[in-house]
């Protein structure tokens, strides 16, 4: 299979339609990448939040038990 265009400049120009074709691809790729990054950030933020929450809960359950054991001794 042969590439249709002979040179890179021809490929970028796309006849007279380079502006239209490349702007479409830029918009689409940009929006989709932004959406993927947004989805990933959402997940990471949630995991971070839940981790902090769990650590706090672990502290809360650990704290009251230690003085009680000390007093009982």
């Amino acid at each position, binding site marked *: *299979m042969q590439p249709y265009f002979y040179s890179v400049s021809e490929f970028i120009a*796309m006849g007279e339609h380079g502006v239209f*074709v490349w702007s*479409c*691809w830029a918009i689409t790729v940009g929006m*989709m990448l932004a959406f993927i990054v947004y989805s990933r950030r959402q*997940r990471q933020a949630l995991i971070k939040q*839940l981790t902090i*929450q769990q650590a706090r809960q672990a502290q809360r359950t650990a704290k009251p038990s230690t003085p009680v054991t000390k007093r009982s001794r």
Partner: protein
Amino acid sequence: MMGRTCRHKLRNRFIPMPNLNNVSSPSLWQRIWQGFLTTVGTKQFFRIFAPWVKWLAILAGMCLLLGSVWGLAFAPPDYLQGNSYRIIFIHVPAASLAISIYFALAVLGVIYLVWKIKTASLVAQALAPMGFLLCVISLLTGSIWAKPTWGTYWVWDARLTSMLILAFLYAGVMALFAAFEHTANRGKAAAILSIVGAVNLPIIKYSVEWWNTLHQGATFTLTAAPKMSADMWMPLLLMIIGSYLLVATLAIYRTNTLILSRDQGKAWVKEYIRGQHK
């Protein structure tokens, strides 16, 4: 001497109604149905589909990359439109997905309202912003394509207008998902709008046949041979498959995020979060 709390407890106690017609054990069909209901639970969805994300993403990326390079650099130009037709490789997959995702929202809405399967509502919530994004992409690329081909960015053509309405419907569904604090109400309201809005789908599909539109008819149908040459439709098919796979990947990923958020109090989620940092 029955206190308030005591009566409250009694009222909420679950007492199964004795079935007088059929005292025998549940039939095979009932058992299969019950099994199905438990497998589509949030935990099972997460367990089954989380490992798929990576492989689906790789497959989608490969299809999209190959399709893009083929479509942009190797496919021959159209004899009438020249190189501007290369926009088809994103316009058609985006538009096709925008319609398919809305159809999926309607089906998921029915599943949620009839069988009360929570996962369906979460998948719909994960899909709605993606459908909106793809609908906007198809409108934008379509209007950019229209400039060199029709000489204008926008006409109030039946296909274009019905597609614009689809974007508004998506915005409505997303707003409903965001509007309610209570998860069940949120899912119900959005499901109802998704089902009612599905009336728009056949209008979009047949707009090019019912009205005299500027927009051309379908290039691809499942039944007839493609109206394009093979070195044009093969990259297009790759792009369509790739974008469906990408949407599936993102749908699973985003649904799993929603599942983790919703079930954050459950033991298996806590275990999963603990596992994330080891």
